């Protein structure tokens, strides 16, 4: 488990302060919060889920409240009370009385439950104006005085009479709350909503600091703004993403265009079209690196842009010279594209998860070398959603989290060699050829990486075991090279573990009798005498008449060399004839890994390259 919080220096006379790092997750329509090691249900409503169970949600955090949209609902999670509720709700007033002898008079309203109301909140009192006596309609700040009553002040020249009841409702939203939105963001303290299925080109921004105020009739600089009512005008395409880039700049991505918002639209801000040739492939198909470079995936590939006028850099296409085909095959609506920047690894992860639940092929963009690297995760790991979680307790709390298709949230873990299932890795080196003639590959020397010294020998290293699915499961070490035998001691957290353990096939582990859901971090004593290295790689040599045959096609000749040890420069005598050659490094063994430094291929001439396909 990685998530803890740490204290920082307390203020004078105050108890210790703490950073709070929460992870808010939505699954099956319910909202969850992590705290410490755990993730707990935060739904405060008595009924079922308030969000749809399957659609991707978009969330924005403003002043202690997380706003969540799913294309139909707008739900808020109030952190101070850990409750989840629809942002807009209506309470029926069963009794309304007034008191006092002069203005302002005090009105007392009785409702079934004031649990959704908070003191200081401004609500709309709306009653049947044709009733006699008429209700006290209007917007009023309220004070909750009990579980069923709240009060508000009425300015009136005359003593109000008790109005008719049963037709009065209380609504907590000013103006008209946008509906059917699928995009949410916090920009300049406004709750920015878009993706309205009925008006997909429109956008809505709440009043600054008041996410429940969508009263567009106000004209002050902090007032709510709607695209169709703004002097800045609308965007001409359905909005697919909101990018709150800085306090001064934000962008919206559409299907085929990119727009930049500069400044507050209620205070002279402008909307500028950055491009009408590219749009974003989904609401999360963007990220920003630590230098402020914005990256996004559009129809044409992977782009970067620096959208600040002072340092403006037009969108740069990063993928056209390397792996353009990958992006050309992406499908908006079918592929769920998410970008996350991993500052520790200087990389960007481009997740592409098919909506049919099949295994996606993702990409890693290596900023230092500019390369693109395909990655594949187990299908259930998705991710359907993702985020970078920056904990405060150290580097090991900065992790990329993946929301799976199976209700599990996973973390990319630099210490592990498996995904709970085996990682199948491969890379094709080449194609190479000696010259225009055929050649015979005579010998191969491969220089692999090494297991660092601190992993070799009889030293304890930390291994994180997976959670146990049932009490019958074995606790499986993630490094299967541990030569555990049935008579050997196993140390767990430095403690002698005397529970029964067994050896099953290639899986080393034991059943510690732990309850379902238990998680363990174990130290084990590394034994180097039997099988010292968690290392495995096969080198498949191939030869053929042309470059195609030794890469994507079928080679005419091939041979496989296996390496189970690191570092070894193994000279293997081979006799493969051909015009072109390649070497594929591949590892499909559990709990092993490899790295590669170089290879030397020795050839002798073999005359004309007479082979055909």
């Amino acid at each position, binding site marked *: 488990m990685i998530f803890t919080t740490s204290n920082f220096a307390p203020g004078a006379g105050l108890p210790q302060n703490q950073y709070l790092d929460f992870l808010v997750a939505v699954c099956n329509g319910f909202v969850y919060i992590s705290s410490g090691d*755990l993730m707990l249900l935060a739904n405060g409503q008595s009924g079922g889920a308030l969000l749809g169970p399957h659609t991707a949600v*978009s969330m*924005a955090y403003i002043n202690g409240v997380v706003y969540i949209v799913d294309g139909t609902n707008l739900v808020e999670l109030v952190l101070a009370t850990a409750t989840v509720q629809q942002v807009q709700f209506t309470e029926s007033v069963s009794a309304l009385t007034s008191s006092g002898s002069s203005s302002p008079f005090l009105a007392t309203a009785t409702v079934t439950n004031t649990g959704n109301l908070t003191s200081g909140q401004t609500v709309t009192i709306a009653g049947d104006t044709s009733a006699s006596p008429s209700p006290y309609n209007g917007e009023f700040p309220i004070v909750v005085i009990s579980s069923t009553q709240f009060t508000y002040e009425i300015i009136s020249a005359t003593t109000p009479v008790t109005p008719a009841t049963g037709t009065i409702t209380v609504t907590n939203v000013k103006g008209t709350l946008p509906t059917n939105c699928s995009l949410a963001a916090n920009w300049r303290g406004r709750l920015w909503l878009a993706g309205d299925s009925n008006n997909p080109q429109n956008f809505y921004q709440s009043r600054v600091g008041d996410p429940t105020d969508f009263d567009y009739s106000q004209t002050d600089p902090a007032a709510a703004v709607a695209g169709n009512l703004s002097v800045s005008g609308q965007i001409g395409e359905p909005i697919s993403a909101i990018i709150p880039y800085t306090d001064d700049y934000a962008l919206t991505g559409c299907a085929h265009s990119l727009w930049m918002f500069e400044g507050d639209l209620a205070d002279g801000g402008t909307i500028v079209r950055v491009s009408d040739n590219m749009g974003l492939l989904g609401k999360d198909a963007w990220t920003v690196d630590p230098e402020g470079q914005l990256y996004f995936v559009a129809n044409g590939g992977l782009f970067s842009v620096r959208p600040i006028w002072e340092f403006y850099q037009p969108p740069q296409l990063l993928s056209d010279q390397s792996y353009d085909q990958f992006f050309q095959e992406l499908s908006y609506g079918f592929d769920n594209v998410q970008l996350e920047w991993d500052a520790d690894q200087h990389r960007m992860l481009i997740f592409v998860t098919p909506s049919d639940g099949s295994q996606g092929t993702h990409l890693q963009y290596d900023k230092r070398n500019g390369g693109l690297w*395909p990655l594949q995760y187990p299908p259930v790991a998705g991710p*359907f959603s993702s985020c970078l979680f920056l904990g405060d307790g150290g580097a090991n709390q900065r992790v990329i989290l993946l929301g799976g298709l199976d209700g599990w949230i996973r973390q990319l873990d630099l210490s592990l060699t498996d995904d709970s299932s085996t990682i199948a890795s491969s890379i*094709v080196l080449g194609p190479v050829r000696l010259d225009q003639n055929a050649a015979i590959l005579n010998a191969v020397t491969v220089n692999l990486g090494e297991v660092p010294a601190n992993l070799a020998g009889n030293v304890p290293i930390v291994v994180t075991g997976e959670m146990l699915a049932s009490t019958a499961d074995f606790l499986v070490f993630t490094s299967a090279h541990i030569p555990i035998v049935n008579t050997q001691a196993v140390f767990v957290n430095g403690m002698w573990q005397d529970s029964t353990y067994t050896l099953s096939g290639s899986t080393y582990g034991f059943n510690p009798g732990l309850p379902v859901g238990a998680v363990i971090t174990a130290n084990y004593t590394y034994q180097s005498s039997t099988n010292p290295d968690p290392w495995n790689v096969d080198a498949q040599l191939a030869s053929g008449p042309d470059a195609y045959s030794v890469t994507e096609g079928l080679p005419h000749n091939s041979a496989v060399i296996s390496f189970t040890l690191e570092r070894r420069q193994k000279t293997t005598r081979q006799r493969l004839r051909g015009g072109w050659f390649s070497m594929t490094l591949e590892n499909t063994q559990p709990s092993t890994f490899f790295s590669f430094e170089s290879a*030397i291929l020795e050839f002798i001439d073999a005359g004309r390259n007479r082979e055909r396909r």
Partner: protein
Amino acid sequence: MLGHAKVISIGSPVKGVVRTISREQQAPDTCWDANNIVPYDRFGRLRVGQRTGMSKAFVNQIGSGSTVQGLLPVHTILYGGSSSAVNGVPFYTGGGFQQAFGPAPAGWSYSGTFISIGSTAAPGTSVAFQGTAPSADIFSGTFNFVVEVPMSYSTLPSSTWNGEFTITGVGATVDVDLGNYIGGSATITASLRVNSIFIGSESIHLSTGNQNLNLNISVVPSTSVDSVVVVSMTGIVAVSSTLIANPPSATIDPTITLINPGAGHKQLPLMIG
């Protein structure tokens, strides 16, 4: 004509997959295809290697196994305030045991999320979770715990009982589900042998309001051997509950919560310009 050996050296293709040029012109330091390969190996050196793995980040599966629809990190600050600041501290984040359990008894000590119970602790001493469920059906929580007898006692006979640890749920309708031990409103006692370890996850649900929930952890040292038992408990979350002591209360400071004001679900860096 057959001749003498010639050598081709292949370096690590650290510039990634390139498929936009002819097959015969594959650029140096690039490759035609790769899967689950990264340019910097797991130890940070610039040489291609297999990517690292992944693991489950939390103890519990959510949403009955459905798709995780969204993730949002929220960073804020909890600071101690007066007891009247907020009526209800929703989150205990594992930052300090004392916040949830009050002062340590004699012979006990706290260190972050760990309790160490020394040999001088009086048998039967305990700490209690300082929580109150203010209304019906509102308190629920789960915590992880680890009880270990350290390795330093491995020289003792394995048959020696080294200590006893007890978790007691007090309340008319407190359900305590302690891993394999389901006790209803029962007291859960696990006897610890030398070199033993007990790890579990407990969920608590108080279905009747206005009752005090006393979650006691007590350790009964053996009278025959010196006893040191380490209890680690993290992740107490008392939803809508009120801490009634230590600290008096706390609040989320609305003036400093906007560490990441414009982020949406993303983490944005501090901006230049």
